[in-house]
């Protein structure tokens, strides 16, 4: 049995999405900037995709700009606003648990003379709204706080954050790469100025993303050049990718309720059973304020990569915040920010669900996982004392 439980890493392209894309990889190859018939069709296709995505945000099509992915959107939003407003101020507020695309962009700006406040999070991964208020300064030009965390699934109090930003007239960006497709974001209700999204997280193709940019938001380009994307993002458009993104977004929001119910049920089942069946296990992230498809737990005494390898051998695809899975020296900065010990962070397992998952698959995981954990614990020098009742 093959069970893919790494949907937060990336998703398969839905057949309908691929079908929508294929004509633009075959017959409609003209450059959308061209005048002739070969190009005109493609211009229309991009407009359609832009409409599809704008609709999911209850936004205007002119507020959607296509990019090469979520990382580009994040970098553009953050560096673009920083560059545009640097004479007004050089202070940025973000959190400790952002995706690296945000975190490393902010760290880069620090080297270039900006100051960044990294808000801490509590043990569930939530920032404190009070902290946010207190960190605002006269020279704060940007608040960038993710909607949903990619590792632990925690959802931030986005409405409150957006309201605070608005009250203080500070541009507010949210990395919604993980939230998009699971949660309805209404830009008429939520005073957010910029939203990053990425197609491959919601059954669209890899290498295409978008930035929602509220009309009037001051920003510099990240990629200068031709007049594409209303002169804000140059480069011949990835038409097939954009068409696929539009279709995927439309499909996600057409079936949102069903999708939410299905995944929430599966997630709760999986999570409760794991916590019930496997001792010395801890949930990471908030129990309620979490993505509908995210299960993240730490198993004491064992390390994540060896768990992933063992799961992979029985056909289960998952991920972990262990340093050993990333080639970095430290385990996940997100898990450490929750106050987890290095050991517990190394022992984390992330299972993220998707529309294709079934109860049978979850049962299979629940059958395979406990012996794997036990086998690794039996091999672990950290487990010795436990068996003997000593701690």
């Amino acid at each position, binding site marked *: 049995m093959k069970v893919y439980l790494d949907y937060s890493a990336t998703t398969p392209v839905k057949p309908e999405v691929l079908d929508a894309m294929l004509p633009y990889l075959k017959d409609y190859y003209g450059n959308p900037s061209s005048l002739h018939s070969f190009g005109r069709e493609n211009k229309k296709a991009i407009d359609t995709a832009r409409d599809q995505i704008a609709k999911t945000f209850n936004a205007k099509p002119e507020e959607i700009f296509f990019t090469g992915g979520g990382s580009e959107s994040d970098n553009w939003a953050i560096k673009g606003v920083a560059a545009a407003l640097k004479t007004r101020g050089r202070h940025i507020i973000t959190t400790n648990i952002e995706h690296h695309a945000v975190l490393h962009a902010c760290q880069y700006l620090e080297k270039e003379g900006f100051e960044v406040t990294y808000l801490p999070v509590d043990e569930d991964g939530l920032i404190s709204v009070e902290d946010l208020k207190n960190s605002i300064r006269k020279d704060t030009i940007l608040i960038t706080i993710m909607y949903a965390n990619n590792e632990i699934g925690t959802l931030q109090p986005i409405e409150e954050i957006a309201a605070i930003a608005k009250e203080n007239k500070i541009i507010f960006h949210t990395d919604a790469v993980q939230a998009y497709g699971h949660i309805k974001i209404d830009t008429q209700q939520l005073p957010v100025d910029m939203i990053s999204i990425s197609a491959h997280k919601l059954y669209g193709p890899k290498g295409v993303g978008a930035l929602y940019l509220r009309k009037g938001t001051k920003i510099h380009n990240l990629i200068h050049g031709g007049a594409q994307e209303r002169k804000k993002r140059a480069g011949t458009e990835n038409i097939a990718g954009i068409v696929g993104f539009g279709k995927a977004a439309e499909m996600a929001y057409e079936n949102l309720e069903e999708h939410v119910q299905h995944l929430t049920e599966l997630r709760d089942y999986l999570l409760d059973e794991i916590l019930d069946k496997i001792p010395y296990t801890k949930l990471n992230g908030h129990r309620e304020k979490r993505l509908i498809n995210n299960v993240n737990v730490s198993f004491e005494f*064992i390390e994540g990569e060896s768990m992933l390898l063992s799961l992979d051998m029985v056909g289960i695809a998952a991920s972990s915040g262990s340093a050993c899975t990333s080639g970095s020296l430290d385990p996940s900065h997100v898990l450490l920010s929750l106050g987890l010990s290095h050991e517990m962070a190394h022992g984390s397992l992330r299972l993220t669900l998707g529309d294709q998952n079934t109860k049978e698959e979850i049962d299979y995981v629940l059958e395979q996982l406990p012996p794997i954990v036990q086998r690794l614990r*039996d091999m672990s*020098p*950290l487990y010795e004392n436990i068996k003997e009742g000593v701690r």
Partner: protein
Amino acid sequence: MYSEIVMDHFTNPRNVGEIENADAVGQVGNPKCGDIMKMYFKIEDNVIVDVKFKTFGCGSAIASSSMATEMVKGKTVEEALALSNYEVAKELDGLPPAKMHCSLLAEQAIKSAIFDYAQKHNLYYKELEGFDPDADEDHHDHGEEE
């Protein structure tokens, strides 16, 4: 990512366990780095007649422990001391650059156990000169990959 030999040693690790009343016990690594290796030797007439290990760590750490224990079993203490991490990695048919430190950890676990043995029996080994079993050196040599 891993060679077949690594996967074999990860899936069916040799010499897992503990030795009661072991002649030598050594432990290296720390949970911060994500790997801890503990080795137990039974030594008779200067020969390692039995060896067991326990490892908290990634696949290559477990495979390295398994391979290293296989390699020192039946060797003299001096021969065991001479074992380098490159030999362990080579026997495993290579390790990814970011995982070479796991083989180093195995080498150090052996040294640490023998250090324990040397201390208990007041023995001197040139190879252990300067060896500090509690040193928390940054043995990581992660590549730039990924």
